[in-house]
């Protein structure tokens, strides 16, 4: 600590400042402290999955207006009853800013690490690559576009993690908050533009960042815009009792251990949570042309417009089959971040997309039977039982009482991948 310590009071707060402060104190306290009982009960505390840590960090009260009204009433009562002149507003400001800083930092770590280990937007599946551009919603295209460049995703994650780190320290908090404004400001606008589902949450983070930055805003304007001398922060809290010092150390260590180290470790050990991890039919991964398609002994010719005839079929590496046909798809338009440990809830591959029908399947290798379940929540219960046989390495036959489908693997080369390998400077024939 510098030597220039005096115990003289800092600049006096005037009444107007106090009234504003009382409102913001109550408002932000309610914003950052989880009071929702379901929030605690929804987490499996004994077997913590990284998704749980994410969900803990992703908390925000869904009652913005009510909180504002409560804060308004609270501030009024507080103002009316405020006879105790000994309350140090500097001290209250200090502590509420600590709470908001930590809340914000945790939020940034939560998303930052999902991006740093590029899990949030995975590289597109084979089915995703084989879907028309126009068959995606905006939000899905945003996610897929990020998914093709894992390095860039890691970079964005790193920016968030560093920003979170800056927020954990009082002296760098305003710099961190300013970066949040730029970064999350962009996320907020993107969410509106791409019809993503996180605009409320990102706006919530922006308000927290504004509050953190407001502490230094006046002196920054003074120094940079008005180009006049500026006073630094002059209020410091010195913890004297052991329990205070250790308490502070323990809390800070806990945040770093739980939301940074443990979380990062668990994430680094996992594969993408967006796609299922159950292996699919061995050796079947690929894109297949539907060479022959008969229904009830009636052979249907190739058609782009027929809602019944399949056009092509993709076997993913995992147990998903997707079928392209002209049968309309009711789009599963979930677009909020869900980190799910349960395989069946992993529906990223089909969210926000039309053009293909997605099925998860079970394989009975003895009877050579595939049991397909439509993954889309709008087609719950749709099931297909198909006998499969391999005619040769690249030919598959799927059949049951009414269907008879011959699939031929297509040796498809994707321009996306060819150019990623060769670069755009060479001439490519494809």
């Amino acid at each position, binding site marked *: 600590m510098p030597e220039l310590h005096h115990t003289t009071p800092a600049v006096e707060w005037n009444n107007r400042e106090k009234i504003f402060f009382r409102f913001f104190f109550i408002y932000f306290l309610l914003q950052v402290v989880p009071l929702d009982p379901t929030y605690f009960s929804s987490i499996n505390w004994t077997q913590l999955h990284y998704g749980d840590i994410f969900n803990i960090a992703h908390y925000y009260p869904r009652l913005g207006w009510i909180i504002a009204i409560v804060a308004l009433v609270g501030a009024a009562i507080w103002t009316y009853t405020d006879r105790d002149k000994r309350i140090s507003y500097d001290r209250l400001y200090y502590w509420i800013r600590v709470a908001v800083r930590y809340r914000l930092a945790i939020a940034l770590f939560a998303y930052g690490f999902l991006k740093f280990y590029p899990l949030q937007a995975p590289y597109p599946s084979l089915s995703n690559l084989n879907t028309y551009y126009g068959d995606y919603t905006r939000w899905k295209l945003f996610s897929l576009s990020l998914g093709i460049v894992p390095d*860039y995703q890691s970079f964005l994650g790193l920016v968030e993690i560093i920003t979170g780190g800056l927020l954990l320290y009082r002296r760098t908090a305003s710099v961190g908050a300013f970066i949040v404004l730029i970064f999350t400001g962009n996320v907020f606008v993107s969410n509106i533009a791409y019809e993503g589902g996180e605009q409320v949450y990102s706006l919530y983070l922006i308000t927290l960042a504004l509050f953190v930055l407001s502490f230094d805003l006046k002196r920054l304007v003074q120094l940079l815009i008005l180009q006049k001398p500026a006073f630094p922060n002059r209020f410091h809290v010195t913890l004297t009792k052991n329990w205070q010092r250790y308490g502070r150390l323990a809390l800070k260590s806990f945040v770093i251990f739980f939301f940074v180290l443990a979380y990062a470790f668990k994430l680094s050990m996992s594969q993408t949570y967006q796609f299922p991890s159950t292996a699919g039919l061995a050796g079947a991964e690929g894109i297949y042309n539907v060479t022959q398609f008969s229904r009830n002994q009636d052979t249907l010719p190739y058609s782009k417009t027929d809602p019944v005839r399949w056009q092509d079929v993709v076997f993913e590496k995992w147990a998903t089959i997707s079928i392209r046909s002209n049968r309309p798809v009711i789009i599963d338009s979930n677009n909020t971040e869900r980190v799910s440990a349960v395989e069946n809830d992993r529906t990223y591959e089909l969210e926000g997309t039309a053009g293909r029908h997605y099925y998860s399947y079970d394989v009975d290798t003895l009877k050579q039977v595939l049991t397909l379940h439509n993954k889309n929540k709008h087609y719950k219960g749709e099931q297909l039982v198909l006998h499969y046989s391999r005619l040769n390495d690249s030919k598959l036959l799927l059949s049951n009482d009414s269907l008879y489908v011959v699939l031929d693997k297509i040796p498809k080369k994707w*321009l996306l991948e060819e150019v990623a390998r060769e670069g755009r400077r060479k001439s490519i024939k494809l």
Partner: protein
Amino acid sequence: MSVIETVLQQDARTTTAPNPVDAWKPWHKVLFRIAFIFFIAICIPNSTEWYKLVLNIDWTHLHYRDLYDIARFGSGINLFGDSIFGSNLLGYANWITTAIIAIAGGFLWTAIVQWRKTEREEYNVMYYWLRAIVRYRAGIGIIGFGFTKLLPVQMPYPSLGILNTNFGDLTAQKIYWLSVGIVPWYQIFAGVVEITAGSLLLFRKTTTLGAILLFAALGDIVYVNFAYDGGVHVYSSYFVLLAAFLLVNDLPKLYNLLILERYTVPVNFYPDFSGWKKYTRFGIKAATLFVFLGWFFYLQLINFLYDPYKQPSVAGEKELRGNYTVTEFRLNNQVIPYSPLDSVRWQEATFEDWTTFTFRVNRPVFLDLSNGGGDPQRDLNRTFEVAGVGGGQRVFHYYADPKNHVLYLQDKFKANPERRNRAAGVGGDGGTARNLKTDSSLAATAALPDNWIPKEIWQDEVNRIDPRAASTRRNREFATAKNNEKRNRMILQYDTKDGNRIILHGINENKDSIYVVLDKVQRKYALSESSLKAGKY
């Protein structure tokens, strides 16, 4: 709570403001001399081409690209070429050369000053002017860059042909640009950010804010360009570099105030602006604001409304527009049934709102992997719809003869595209020197004679857009256009009653006769359209 609050009361007088003139240490001066040479060199155009272009601008019939060209130029010392030991270091070689010369020059300058004992105290004046030059260079440059986003034409909304292309059949670069193109309002937001940053740089008091904004926004764009192979990494890094230089002045102050928590006195040296200097300064500033904010906005608006630069501007035949299935296809009177694997038969076809016809065939062809940029005035050379698109998509420009129901079609793919962004020099976003080196064996087979399109069909093309979008630049390019490029050519007769069924027949690019029946399909896209659309068709 037994917490002791200690209040740090620091006396302003204990931290004396450094005298602006005394503050320069010898090593400051050496660094400054190096920076001076370096930043002057990269703030002025280095090719005679730019000067020629700018001198030839017709200010009475301006095109937005004229101002864009003023704002965008190649710079740095390139007397020894743009590579070091044969490598252009991803395009940064020119910076390294400039830096080496600046370092040598800085030391030489120092030596001369010490030898002649002519060291002056007026470094603050020179530093002020160096910062002023960099501020204006960065400000004008980023404003020029930002306007094509503010009125969203830089990344167009995908054409029908692209909407019908598989995601994996696009290059990464294309995917990124499309991902901005599908949300014009977001593109506007990006333009607002860039123009705001640029405008803030034009004022001394808001320079820091502008520089931070520029640094953050363009830093991201640099990374994007590397990640998606966008090709504009050097030009975006350029702004990051200029912004970083401008921030050097303020970072110590911020560090002092926020991290060290010390009383901070800003030291900003401003030269004397009184008398005629005051008016000159005001005049230059006002002219810059008027030309690069006001006039530029107007020209860009005209471009957005009537002539979006990456998208063809001439309207297509009204009754032909839409998505079609290829119901019947005959090649030399032989019916070929539909199969997605057939290497001759067309699969789906589209007529865009403008003069473009696309269809898909399952046969490999050479692809245009550029970013489809530049500023071609002729629709035939506006290649955004074909650039970076694979999956068997064929894209043809057509001239229609509505009287005789004939379409004259030319392949938009060209092995050796025109040179683009001439003012920008090396590091331009497409079609510069590297495209000229493309393998010449890609040349198409032009099966039809050179005078295959009657003159009356194409001759007044230059005037087929709204007269408000006319410009000398457009006239000049049309006047010098080549008419006999080797491209794939087709002449097709079209018959339709209402556009629901179109019959095309004639000669294709291989001189085979084709007969094609197209039936309109209403494709419902999951991708929502924006209310904001460029062009008038």
